């Protein structure tokens, strides 16, 4: 794997003293999908805007494909496509011309076949002569993606691509992202939908208050950070947890027929064997046992609230 995007100690502070980025460093491998998670105002959009040239960094270094974004901005930007968070399109222009403008802006000559291919891929071909204002919100988002892809970028930034989008379109969007990955495009997406990161990302970065709290392989992150739970279902409900099981820190559900045991997957001893023995010795009869892994969302909430790192 080669590094396609390298960010070193990137900082951005504004005249009023607000620090939007506090020394972010990150390497992104070619062909991967990185999801940047973070609450509103965490610095996700500032990070993307700075890499893409919309915001000037206060200090730090960013290279895209080895090209510095400031000293060699033309070569760097040619490799980048950006799909912004807000729908920003000229309402009276038609889809075709809007997409063609993007290709031209990036210095690429007329290539109708390429634009047609992009529009077809995004199910926009039938709408090519429609004015933007005639399109639905979902279609407008597709136009934004088509514009970003018109110049055949190697790195694609998707800034909250599914914010305010219905479930069906979100699934469509994930499919589009998967297809782009198959084409070898590196994708960095910001989101605060955890299931989005969980569904499509290879790696997950968590950003909060301008700092990158961690970047990790999604599976590793879930395995390392994730807590697992065992739900022990009893054949007969009980009124309270027997004293002999007090050491296990169990919780009892409302009906009284499920005991929940939480443990760390990466602990040396999970305590499962002891628990099951103790349950049996307490005279409780098991109906079923199942495990449940904490979701990225729970990991994320824990991280930004500072409970676990």
């Amino acid at each position: 794997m080669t590094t396609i995007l390298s960010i070193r100690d990137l900082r951005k502070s504004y005249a009023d003293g607000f620090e939007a980025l506090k020394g972010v460093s990150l390497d992104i491998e070619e062909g991967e999908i990185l999801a940047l998670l973070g609450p509103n105002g965490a610095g996700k959009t500032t990070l993307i805007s700075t890499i893409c040239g919309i915001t000037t960094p206060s200090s730090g270094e960013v290279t895209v494909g080895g090209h510095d974004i400031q000293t060699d901005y033309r070569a760097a930007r040619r490799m980048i496509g950006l799909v912004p968070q807000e729908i920003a399109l000229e309402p009276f222009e038609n889809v075709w011309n809007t997409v063609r403008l993007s290709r031209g802006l990036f210095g690429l000559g007329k290539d109708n076949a390429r634009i047609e291919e992009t529009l077809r891929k995004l199910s926009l071909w039938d709408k090519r002569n429609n004015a933007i204002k005639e399109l639905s919100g979902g279609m407008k988002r597709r136009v934004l993606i088509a514009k970003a892809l018109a110049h055949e970028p190697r790195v694609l930034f998707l800034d909250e691509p599914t914010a305010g989008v219905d479930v069906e379109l979100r699934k469509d969007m994930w499919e589009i992202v998967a297809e782009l990955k198959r084409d070898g495009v590196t994708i960095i997406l910001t989101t605060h939908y955890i299931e989005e990161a969980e569904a499509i990302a290879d790696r997950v970065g968590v950003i909060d208050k301008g700092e990158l709290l961690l970047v990790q392989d999604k599976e590793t992150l879930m395995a390392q950070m994730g807590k697992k739970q065992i739900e022990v279902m009893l054949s007969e409900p009980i009124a309270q947890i027997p004293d002999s099981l007090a050491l296990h820190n169990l919780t009892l559900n409302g009906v009284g027929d499920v005991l929940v045991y939480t443990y760390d997957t990466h602990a040396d001893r999970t305590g499962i064997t002891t628990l099951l023995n103790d349950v049996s010795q307490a005279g409780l009869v098991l109906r079923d046992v199942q495990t449940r892994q904490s979701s990225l969302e729970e990991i994320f909430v824990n991280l930004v609230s500072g409970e676990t790192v």
Partner: protein
Amino acid sequence: MNWTAIAAIYRFEMSRFFRTLAQSFFSPVLSTSLYFVVFGTAIGSRIQEVEGVSYGAFIVPGLIMLSVVMLSISNASFGIYFPKFLGTIYELLSAPVNFFEIVIGYVGAAATKALFVGLVILATATFFVDIRIEHPFAMAAFLILSCLSFSLLGFIIGIWASNFEQMSLVPQLVVTPLIFLGGTFYSISMLPPLWQTITLFNPVVYLISGFRWSFYGSADVPIVLSLLAILAFTGLCLAVIGWIFKTGWRIRS
């Protein structure tokens, strides 16, 4: 230079113009005709001749300048303000283009549209009055330079403005009075001596005077001064654009 990008911006801006071609064409034809009816016929019948030219023909250069200047400003200011307002400016800022390439695209398109309207007015005027153009190259130079320089001014206004009210502030409160008091409808020699001196501080006087000279060979101020004035104005606008480019003022945070 990213010429492909400049062409793309230019083409995109012009396509808006072509979408409303009928409006772009008939509006100046109608307004010019109205000026001729009101000023040329009603007032002109009492004035007869100014500096050896019929009043109707005398006001033609001023009328063209009036429209060209106002349109250059509004085309260019809306051209760049619209992307700011809609948010589409993100694409310009993240594209491999520098600020001068953006300026050339937008200003070029704004100036082309204004030039087209200027020529339409000139053609319309020939239906009402006899026009002669003694110095066609000078006429073309003044017309093109005016389109370009005021488009540059419009671009600066579009960058500066943070709402639609500010967009119309400079054209309405500054430019319109300067044009009307700049000898569009009269010769400066018709004013009392004190006002003649005061008028010389109005930069538009030099513009209209020079442009009128290219038509009829007579001018309120020496032609060299007119040329220097328009060149200085263009230079000033370019300097401001250069400063915006350097500082990213109101564009890049």
